[in-house]
């Protein structure tokens, strides 16, 4: 049964964001604010960078504000942070990416002004932007979200996020389904999925953690990973990508959202997150950690798999 999800707070949130952006821009405490603005199609939203207090009215927040804006602070708009302190609108999931980036010396907390957004959830990528948010249209990542109210922001609108219905956790269910398969069945599943990949690298472009200037997978001296948009190359790319994100990805699911071929990319990342939680009790994105789980060790780490 489809349940409607209450997004009535978004109006208040939008007003609050606008007010705060106007205040910090006119005060001059930030040089720009990264947020969302309405886009051309009805009900849709797109990322925007505003630098004038007068433009604050453009900022909105709605169930169509799907993007993780963290990427605009690293590679997408590299020059933004250089111009002084930056304001950024963050959902709980986006904040986790920012926290991770701080731990990896890519951002400094003191250079950011975080405008936290109480969030009831956003729409799945396959849903038209002006659709109502329901248990059927909500994005998969929001189904298992535990961070509807981002913590530790400089400003958070005093709105309580509505109590959202308990939804079935799709990733967890899918991981369990795959884990129950034989290796051959899993191979067949992923082969079918990776076969679709056209190596457009949208997943890489949108990922806040893919901040390398030169990707390992683009190197040709030596060619560590096959680059062809064919099965072998695709497999290699997705395995390497999942490995590189292990312990860092906090599940903003942008890779999956932008994938034009609908490959369930976040599934790999969630699986790795689950394993690292089980192995080392590590969850990405909650605190700025100097060392991720794969950059540290404990002498007593599990080694039951080593003979």
């Amino acid at each position: 049964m489809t349940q409607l999800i209450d997004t009535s707070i978004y109006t208040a949130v939008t007003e609050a964001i606008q007010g705060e952006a106007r205040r910090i821009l006119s005060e001059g405490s930030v040089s720009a604010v990264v947020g969302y603005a309405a886009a051309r199609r009805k009900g849709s939203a797109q990322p925007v960078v505003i630098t004038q207090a007068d433009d604050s009215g453009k900022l909105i927040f709605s169930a169509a504000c799907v993007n993780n804006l963290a990427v605009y602070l690293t590679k997408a708009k590299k020059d933004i942070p250089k111009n002084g302190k930056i304001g950024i609108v963050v959902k709980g999931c986006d904040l986790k990416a920012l926290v991770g980036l701080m731990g990896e010396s890519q951002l400094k907390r003191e250079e950011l002004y975080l405008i936290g957004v109480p969030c009831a959830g956003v729409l799945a990528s396959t849903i038209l932007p002006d659709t109502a948010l329901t248990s059927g249209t909500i994005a998969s990542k929001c189904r298992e979200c535990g961070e509807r109210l981002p913590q530790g922001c400089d400003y958070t609108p005093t709105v309580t996020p509505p109590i959202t219905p308990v939804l079935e956790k799709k990733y967890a269910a899918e991981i369990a389904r795959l884990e129950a398969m034989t290796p051959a069945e899993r191979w067949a599943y992923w082969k079918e999925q990776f076969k679709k990949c056209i190596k457009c690298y949208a997943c890489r472009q949108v990922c806040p953690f893919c901040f390398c200037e030169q990707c390992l997978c683009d190197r040709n001296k030596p060619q560590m990973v096959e680059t062809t948009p064919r099965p072998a190359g695709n497999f290699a790319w997705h395995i390497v990508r999942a490995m590189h994100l292990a312990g860092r990805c906090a599940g903003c699911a942008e890779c999956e959202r932008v994938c034009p071929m609908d490959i369930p990319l976040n599934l790999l990342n969630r699986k790795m997150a689950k394993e690292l939680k089980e192995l080392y009790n590590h969850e990405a994105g909650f605190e700025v950690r100097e060392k991720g789980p794969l950059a540290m060790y404990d002498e007593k780490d599990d080694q039951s798999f080593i003979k």
Partner: protein
Amino acid sequence: MSRIGVFVCHCGENISRTVDVERVAAEVGKLPGVAFSTDYKYMCSDPGQGLLKKAIREERLSHVVVAACSPRMHEKTFRKAVESAGLNPFLCEMANIREHCSWVHEDRDEATVKAIEIVGMMVERVKKNRVLPTITVPVTKRSLVIGGGIAGIQAALDIADAGHEVVLVEREPSIGGHMAQLSETFPTLDCSQCIMTPKMVDVANHPRIKLYTYAEIEHVEGYIGNFQVTVRRKARSVIEEKCTGCGVCMEKCPVRKIPNTFDRDLGMRPAIYVPFPQAVPNTPVIDRENCTKFKTGKCGVCQKVCGPGAVDYEQEDRLIVEPVGAIVVATGFDLYSIEEKPKGSSIKGYGEFGHGRIPDVIDGMTFERLASASGPTGGKIMRPSDGREPKQIVFIQCVGSRAREKGISYCSKICCMYTAKHTMLYHHKVHDGQAYVFFMDARTPGKSYDEFWRRSIEEEEAVYIRGMVSRLYQKGDKIVVMGSDISVGVQVEIEADMVVLATAVQPRKGADTLAQKLGISYDKYHFYSEAHAKLRPVECATAGIYLAGACQGPKDIPDTVSQASAAAAKVMTLFARDQLEREPIVARVRETGCVGCFYCKKVCPYGAVEEKEIRDRQGNLVKVVAYVNPGVCGGCGTCQATCPSKSVELDGYTDEQIVAMIESL
């Protein structure tokens, strides 16, 4: 295009028996890039090496692969040969077709095919080898010695006598350490202070030893040959340069009843004091916790009576940076404290032995002070409780040591011998007294040690009882010691006047903190770890840091002095050259690719990765990248495997080389 030469060795028959070496040479000769291939009976022999050198010159070879034994055996030999023929030694690789092939397989065909593949793999690898220049780092020919006990003193004197400057840092107000506290030493019974104090004076007078007492190591930076050590000189409240050591201040100090730690709290000292009369330097220190001036602001007697005006109440801690090239760690030991259990430690106390509760239950070091002619009793053995001479005395060995259930499983090594010494000292001073010793084993390996132990029983009438003590308790003015004699299987009960516990040797408190500052490793007890238990016993795994004495493990004086001299010899070996050469297997950062996530820095076991700012011509910061200090890098390559963009590469094991090998298979 590379011109690779491949040399396949028969190793007599060791390889050729199972591997068709001619076929290997012929097959490998067909590989692209191979300009020359041959086989020879013994490649490592002089004619074999001659053949290699000749081929390099005549065939204008660019790279060399020697297919023979393990590189662990002869890599150095062949790289040297290649170098003498004018090629960079790192353009030579070995293919292991003996240990990994001919010796472990019997089927000739199979082994030959495998050998061809192994050589082929190394051919592909060597194509990607780069010229690696030998890395040299300058050496600062000054040494730091941490700890002014007998180990530190010996090391400092040896290094200074060899002509190098030494900075000796001691935590206490005087050097001397535990040895200065001892009465006599085994196995010769010569007076400890008589042999120790001249060495202490030598240190004080040595023109090349800079002595910092009442000082600690604050911070260590740098690497072998180039350390920067920050020393904290704690405020002594007495200006060393002005003080003449006349001692008037100590005589006039109105606070007189402070237990002297040097005398194991048996004697008393004033608030301005030297720990013992022969202290070096003979400069007093004000114990600010107990000084009336510091507590109430009134008094100031010492300043008034000091002729040279050396007393300075305003003095503050000073930080001094000393550049040194090598560090000798000689921080010594603490005695196992049986009444208190260190916080967070798995080591348990010995409450049942009543130490701290029964005043006449003392430890071995306290006994030393009682027996010492310069001790608080002037060398007279008397009970701390009532000053009576004990007529029955019980020594208990292995208190703490070899007691797994108490948390320490090692043997403290010195207790058997010093207990034997104690029974003798006792017998010499209390002629009508009787000494009993409870022991598990008597361990007496060492020159004249067993004779010494036998003497304590045969000539000095000590009664040794094999077995442990289960309980001690006070009964009137006696201490009842209950134990078992397992050699005859009976329970024993002795009414003793005094009990001496041979407590375990433990590393200094804070040994772990110092190790972290130095970047050296330590075991679960916090004893420092040597690089190799047998072959590199005085070096740490961290280059340029050496160990001396009990900080590495329990040791007696002769062993400590030997190790100190050995550590000094290692330092001198290092200082014998102006430049330090090291294998160029180190990581290098490709700055264009580095995005400064510093994963490399996080995983580097050596702390070799630094942050480096890249600026444009106007001086604007472009980015911060990683920089690997080649002097510190150990060459493990963990950084490269961790780097997401592979912007750090380990020379000699680059991705190109490894991928070439995988792709050849």
